[in-house]
């Protein structure tokens, strides 16, 4: 417990978290500080490009590990499974409608890539480098949860549901293509490729991440200010319980897979995090009746800050205890 607190304090005073908090504070104070939409998109392209490439290069540097395939499989299964757990919890803890509950559940099966990046950065800072292929696991966990959510609805309420176009949009959405593509190119060009572009993707990485988290804080804060009213007590609590439930699942499976400490912590983080890009987009198309204020505010306004501040250091500490030494 003492260690967790020390880790948490250390984490809370890192520039990354402080810039996120600055963003939250500026939003609540109604400052007009904003990032241009194009700059925010450019930063997220940069982060996906860098994290994918470094993951791929690291996989070849360390040799391809037997765990790769199993981890991908486990990731896909968890992504598909977690929405059912989330849905059951939501039906018990909240009064959300079937459709809203299913939509929210889908977000929690999927993942938040920035949470993943923040955790990776914290791990690298502590010398706990995770398996490079966790990037691919992150990518594969984006989509299955959406199918589970739509299945939950179609069983009960209909919904305009899935069609071929939507399936293609989900599987080939820009983030997945960029992440997987950079991962593969990192793998193909290996250390030699990494060397060529290291001063672009390694050196300035943390600085860009600070600015990105500042923007996330602004967006999350504005979301909470405007849509916080849609979250009643039960929903609010769900947003902090569910990541822990996910993290425990991730811990168990991560240990069974025999991942390193860093790998287990990342796997916990993936299971604990909730999507706010790919899944909302799919939900707007397939479940337009579900209220985006609920699922976006929950995922971005509650669970994201929770993971960033309390979750990540906890997951790292727990992973160190169970997978370490």
């Amino acid at each position, binding site marked *: 417990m003492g260690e967790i607190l020390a880790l948490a304090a250390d984490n809370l005073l890192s520039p990354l978290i402080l810039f996120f908090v600055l963003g939250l504070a500026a939003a609540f104070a109604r400052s007009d500080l904003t990032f241009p939409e194009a700059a925010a998109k450019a930063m997220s392209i940069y982060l996906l490009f860098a994290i994918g490439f470094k993951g791929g290069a690291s996989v070849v540097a360390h040799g391809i590990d037997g765990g790769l395939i199993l981890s991908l499989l486990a990731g896909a299964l968890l992504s598909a499974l977690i929405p059912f757990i989330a849905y059951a919890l939501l039906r018990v803890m909240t009064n959300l409608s079937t459709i809203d509950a299913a939509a929210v559940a889908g977000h929690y099966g999927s993942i938040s890539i920035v949470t993943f990046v923040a955790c990776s950065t914290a791990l690298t800072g502590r010398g706990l480098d995770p398996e490079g292929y966790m990037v691919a696991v992150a990518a594969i966990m984006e989509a299955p949860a959406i199918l589970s959510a739509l299945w939950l609805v179609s069983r009960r309420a209909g919904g305009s549901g899935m069609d071929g176009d939507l399936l293609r949009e989900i599987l080939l*959405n820009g983030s997945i293509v960029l992440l997987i593509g950079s991962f593969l190119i990192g793998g193909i060009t290996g250390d030699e490729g990494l060397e060529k572009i290291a001063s672009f993707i390694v050196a300035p990485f943390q600085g860009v991440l600070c600015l990105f988290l500042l923007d996330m804080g602004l967006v999350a804060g504005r979301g909470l200010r*405007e849509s916080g009213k849609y979250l009643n007590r039960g929903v609010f609590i769900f947003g902090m319980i569910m990541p822990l439930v996910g993290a425990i699942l991730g811990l168990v499976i991560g240990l069974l897979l025999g991942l390193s400490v860093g790998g287990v912590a990342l796997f916990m983080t993936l299971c604990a995090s909730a999507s706010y890009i790919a899944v909302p987009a799919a939900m*707007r198309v397939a479940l337009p009746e579900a209220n985006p204020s609920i699922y976006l505010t929950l995922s971005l306004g509650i669970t994201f800050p929770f993971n960033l501040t309390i979750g990540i250091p906890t997951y790292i500490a727990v992973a160190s205890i169970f997978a370490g030494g």
Partner: protein
Amino acid sequence: MQTHKAKRVVITIEAIMQKRLTDILEGAGVTGYSILPVLGGSGRSGAWSREGQVSRASGMVQVICIIKPERLDGLLEAVFKVVDKHIGVVTIADVEVLRAERF
């Protein structure tokens, strides 16, 4: 100059639905349209602004079609299929156009 009667249909819709809408427009025989960006707005589902979005799901666009009056009904019926369940606003106005052979 010689002008001709036409209808200007403006559909404000979520960006994520844009492709689906324009596919349907093309299916309904619309020969042209333009897409304008929308920075923000407010309606029954609350206020939003483009700079406060991380999500691809968010943001709206205006799809503008200039059409011959006789095509209006077909177009509206086609459009209605898409906008019915989704948020969005449809307006129709009378306009005059140059070079009517284009529509």
